[in-house]
């Protein structure tokens, strides 16, 4: 059970949050301009490192913010929490 330091609420239990997946690159402005391989990569290759990774969390049962955090998948240490993407 993580403890996430929400910029609005302070440190809150993971049970207040909904995991929103790893942070993916921004959606291309015009998907039709991408070739097939790049589009498939964009959809299907999420970062999955052993170490720091950026991920999205929704503070659904708190202030409602969407947060981006940088979490170490080995130690769970959270280096950064920020609003939005």
């Amino acid at each position, binding site marked *: 059970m993580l403890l996430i330091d929400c910029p609005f609420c302070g440190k809150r239990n993971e049970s207040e949050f909904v995991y929103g997946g790893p942070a993916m690159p921004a959606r291309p402005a015009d998907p039709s301009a991408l070739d097939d391989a790049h589009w498939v990569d964009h959809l299907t290759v999420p970062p999955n490192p052993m170490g720091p990774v950026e991920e999205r969390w929704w503070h659904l*049962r708190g202030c409602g913010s969407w947060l981006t955090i940088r979490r170490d998948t080995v130690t769970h240490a959270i280096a950064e929490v920020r609003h939005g993407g």
Partner: protein
Amino acid sequence: MGYDATITQLPLRALFDLQGEPSAIGDWCGDALPAFPERPNSVSERDGRTLIWTGPDHWLLSAPLGAEAGLSEELRPDDAPADIGVTALSDTVTFFAVTGPDAGAVMAVATPLDLHPDTFPADAASWTESFGTKALIRRIGEGYEIAVDRSYSDWFGAMLDRVVA
């Protein structure tokens, strides 16, 4: 067990969800609102109206149910400008009071939120999680108020009763 605490389901109250920048909300709502609270997750009160700062650009206004129609006329939710949201939510939330000497122990079972006075002072109020469900918690005189989505209230009340029983 057998905690010395009482669980009371409270009557409906007038609730309005306010979203947008405070200046824009202030412009539209004018005197209808108490002053904006100074700290996130805290409360300000005036004339029986309570304003809770629940999130970034997000407030919850509450008042006794009798004030609902009047507030609705003052706030005109359907006419509010595009850059703010004013939405009636009176029926959405069911409030319970947890009171008595053991109210703190009951709350420790109900929520992982730290309710120590240093971190959750008298004017604090916050959405959090209780038994896995979204819940709004606030200190009241002799205990706490805890509120959940109306549709969960039967289950939630039974849950609180089991904790106290």
